């Protein structure tokens, strides 16, 4: 059962996400009034930018408390995007950190590997952190989907 404190947290997270995401959508709508115009940031489609805005908004709503949200913010955040465009893809090899030795539990190896690829930041977590982060990540993802659904339903009326 979800405790009262947890429900309050999930509600405030939902609101923070919704506010931020909607504001990003409005910003996008205002920036490109003409359907055919090219965006300054490059050739990402509207749909890709909306997707990124959604993941970013949720990561911001969660903040830096969670490893997965930190990973999303560092990967997709505005500093990351500026960094990428300046440095170019080829020099990213030098940024890779030394590989962290994970402590596996026998038996979890095969499926945990797939999970690590799906959960942001999962590659360098120990199995316990991975499972904890996964639980939090999927509750937030489910919220994100519900809010996006509600918005899409309401905008098409």
């Amino acid at each position, binding site marked *: 059962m979800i405790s009262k404190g947890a429900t309050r947290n999930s509600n405030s997270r939902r609101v923070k996400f919704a506010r931020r995401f909607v504001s990003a959508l409005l910003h996008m709508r205002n920036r490109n009034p003409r359907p055919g115009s090219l965006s300054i940031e490059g050739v990402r489609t509207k749909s*890709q930018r909306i997707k990124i805005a959604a993941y970013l908004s949720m990561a911001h709503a969660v903040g830096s408390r969670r490893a997965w949200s930190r990973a999303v913010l560092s990967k997709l955040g505005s500093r990351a995007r500026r960094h990428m465009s300046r440095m170019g893809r080829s020099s990213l090899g030098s940024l890779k950190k030394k590989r962290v030795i994970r402590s596996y539990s026998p038996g*979890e190896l*095969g*499926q945990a590997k*797939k999970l690590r690829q799906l959960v942001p930041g999962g590659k360098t977590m120990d199995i316990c952190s991975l499972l904890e982060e996964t639980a939090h990540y999927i509750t937030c*993802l489910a919220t994100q*989907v519900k809010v*996006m659904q*509600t918005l899409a339903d309401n*905008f098409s009326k």
Partner: protein
Amino acid sequence: MSSRRSSQSGTSRITDDQIIELVSKLRQLVPEIRNRRSDKVPASKVLQETCNYIRSLHREVDDLSERLSQLLATIDADSAEASIIRSLIAQ
């Protein structure tokens, strides 16, 4: 009962019990296996279903982003505000 073995690494001693607890927590969150009897769902199945669930959520985000990109022209600040409130009520 399973033995209380620790993992191989010396730095973080993760017990079987910790993992069992976390896996059961995950089980409650994944709709596919939430309603099945807990003693019949092995950890490997939980992890597999969790991966499937995450992938399906990612796909939903993709589809909804596509939908929203088509609706982008129609949104305005007021209806957006109303939508936020509505999404709060509909849990």
